[in-house]
């Protein structure tokens, strides 16, 4: 039998209720047996060293208030650090010092309170365990009956069940009234634009020069040496009104391979220039920039989910979750020797979408 001066009465009550009995509801497939080992009841309360030894008790008290004082010191230090280690725009290290010393002060302030309070609770506050009795979560039968009655009365008084026309029309109205909110959300994107049209075109046009990303310098075919790779944007991109949106679609990779390494479809024979090929840099999986080029294998690797594309074979997918080859940009050179686009891409770039065909 448990000994507990604090709440002995409750404990006695708890011990009478044998484990497993008095529980409402079906046990289902649980095995209920009378052959269970009996619960010995709460073990005897053990005293802590701080209860037995006044010296230890005093010591614990000292520890607790010292921690609280340390916390005050930490707060003061944090304020002082705010002033003593200001940020000096000339010196990046000052940011680090500012962060470090304010942080240390605050850490001390917080930890002092935290550890102090927990220690106080553990070592000094009365540690007698208490016992609360549980009651079934469900309301008592009387309460439930009354609840049912209330609903019945309300139903009777309002005629909610009886007056079917009123009820049903109300339900209809309640369903209809939020619908206007749905159309309001059309305003989230500009009107008069269709995403499908937008996805089908990029900033590339016939004659647009290929320029370096990000400088915007046009590229001469002669500069593209064997094995090199250029990150390319259309010339004049920087001045376009929706620069980032255009860039997100128009980025291109330019590589020069040995012409004999390229396996080219007959209809795309003239899309390259002397072994120089241009492909969309937007991954056909979910749209990351595909920009890791392995010179040896002529593979492009997408850093996001590791799809790999074979440049020698029209950027066909050779590994990873992407399904479609990277779209090719047909290129040529102008009279000054600069690389230009023959046209826009012949298919939408980037991730697949429903209306794509």
């Amino acid at each position, binding site marked *: 039998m448990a000994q507990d001066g604090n709440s002995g009465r409750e*404990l006695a009550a*708890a011990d009478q209720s044998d484990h*497993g009995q*008095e529980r409402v*509801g*079906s*046990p*289902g*497939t*649980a*095995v209920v047996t009378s*052959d*269970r080992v009996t*619960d*010995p009841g709460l073990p005897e309360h053990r005293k802590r060293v701080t209860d037995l030894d006044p010296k230890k008790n005093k010591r614990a008290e000292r520890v607790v208030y010292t921690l609280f004082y340390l916390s005050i010191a930490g707060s003061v230090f944090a304020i002082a650090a*705010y002033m003593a280690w200001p940020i000096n725009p000339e010196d*990046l290290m000052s*940011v680090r010092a*500012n*962060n*470090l010393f304010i*942080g240390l002060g*605050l*850490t001390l302030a*917080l930890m002092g309170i*935290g550890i102090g309070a*927990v*220690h106080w*609770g*553990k070592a000094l*506050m009365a540690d007698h*365990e208490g*016992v609360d009795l*549980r009651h079934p*979560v469900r309301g008592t039968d009387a309460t439930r009956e009354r609840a049912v009655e209330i609903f019945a009365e309300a139903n009777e008084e309002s005629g909610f069940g009886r007056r079917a026309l009123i009820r049903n029309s109300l339900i209809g109205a309640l369903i209809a009234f939020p619908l206007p909110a749905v159309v309001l959300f*059309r305003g*989230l*994107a500009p009107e008069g634009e269709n*995403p499908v049209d*937008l996805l089908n075109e990029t900033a590339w046009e016939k004659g647009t020069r290929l320029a370096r990303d990000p400088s915007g310098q046009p590229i001469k075919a002669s500069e593209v040496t064997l094995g090199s790779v250029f*990150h390319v944007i259309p010339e004049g991109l920087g001045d376009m009104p929706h620069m*980032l949106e255009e*860039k*997100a679609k128009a*980025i291109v990779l330019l590589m020069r391979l040995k012409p004999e390494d390229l396996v080219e479809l007959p209809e795309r024979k003239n899309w390259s220039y002397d072994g120089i090929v241009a492909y969309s840099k937007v991954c056909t*999986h979910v*749209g*990351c920039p595909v920009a890791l080029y392995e010179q040896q294998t002529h593979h492009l*690797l997408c*850093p*996001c*989910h590791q799809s790999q594309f074979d440049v020698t074979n029209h950027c066909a*997918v050779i590994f990873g*979750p*992407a399904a479609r080859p990277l779209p090719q940009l047909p290129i040529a050179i102008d009279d000054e020797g600069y690389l230009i686009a023959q046209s826009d891409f012949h298919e939408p770039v*980037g*991730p697949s*979408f*429903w209306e*794509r065909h």
Partner: protein
Amino acid sequence: MAKKSGGLTAGAANYLDERTSISAVVKEFGRKIFPDHWSFLLGEVALYSFVVILLSGSFLTFFFQASMAEVHYDGSYVPLKGVAMSAAMSSTLDISFDIRGGLLMRQVHHWAALLFVASIGLHMLRIFFTGAFRKPRELNWVIGFVLFILAMAEGFTGYSLPDDLLSGNGLRIIDGMIKGFPIVGTWISFLLFGGEFPGTDIVGRLYTLHILLLPALVVAFIALHLVFVVVHKHTQFPGAGRTQQNVVGYPVLPVYAAKAGGFFFIVFGVIMLMATFFTINPIWNYGPYDPSPVSAGTQPDWYIGFADGALRLVPPHLEFMLFDHTFSFNILIPVGILGLFILTVLIYPFIEAWVTGDKREHHILDRPRNAPTRTAIGAAGVTFYAALWAAASSDIIATHFMVTMEGVIHTLQFCLIVGPFIAYFITKRICLGLQKKDREIVLHGFESGRIVRLPGGEYIEVHEPVDEYERWELVSYEDYKPLMIRPNSRGKITTTQRVRGSLSRWFFEDRIAPTTKNEIERSHGDH
């Protein structure tokens, strides 16, 4: 007492009570009992880190500008001086480099957010493996689960706000995934971004979600969650004197309040310490968002990893043209599998309740070994999640261990499919083994480590009997038998019955019954 002291405190208390009836609240809750166990602290960590998130986040809102308007950076961080970027990025840099303590608060906010999601996850594991989700707490499991999803949404929206290279790339991935959805995808992406990706609206919109809508929901659900904790009273681990009808522990005032209150400051302190010493999300290294630069080896925050991993593990070429439309199964399958996984976790309590048919309230927790099948299912789920999560770092694994990308992906695909089964069987064996061991200890005592030599010359180890308190912990668990399928009143065995029967067999076929009084008595006779 109050009458006698009659001082300021008593006066104030009286003033308040006459206007609020607060004494009733104190009477009701002041000495409410809370049981003590370290694993009960996980939920507290989640709660407290959320408070820290609210505090540090409010500070950040005073400085952050949720705008994608283009500015030229003109702050203290020299390498980015003059670079074109959004006001969001620029103000985040200002918080980091020009406001004293700003970087600290940013890092507190980010670390607290990581801790928030992590502690919710661990808390859920604790609930799962101890069976705390059983009646009457099934709905609170659902509420907690919603909180987990909300926490991830909060994390992702927050991660996207600075408009740096990484967060922009994360949004790009979201955009691509949304576009992969049949019929509505293209339009949802178009509306979400206010036009084409990236547009100039998304940061402002995510900001509204991040600081208004989602936190309001989180607060509401936390409140609901805690109301139910009070209504149900906390569960307790098995132990002598702890029954289904009582709760043994410490009263709110003073001990529990001191410990829990102190613990809040400790959690806050630990977060502060991390923010002091460990840089998190150094956006200045990434630079502003630009659709073009490469970012190899970059990672989403850890809790998004499992989704990212799912995208990586899908087999190639799963996209088809049908009826003039594109079906992106390379996106739909991972999303579908994640959805299914999440749904299973969500409804697990109801499945188990249906299988056992147990309609009683359960306030005593299971030791995981005493519910071997559940524990094994949990281990399988954890393995599945871990494989997805590891896949999010597949490139790092490949470069770090100098193995091929293909090798890593194929290994992880194997782990994803076969791993859960292996984990299931191993865990179940371990649980049953531990149960057998418990039984052994109850019947024959534990090995004392003391070897004695018998007169005959042989050596034996002395077994000491366990005391009755320890014994109670070992034997007091719920035990279920497989369901016997019986025909219903019309003499028919329904399909539901059959399914329930086979699930029940799967759950409880291998069972080790708790040692009974009789068995103990008999074993004493043997000695």
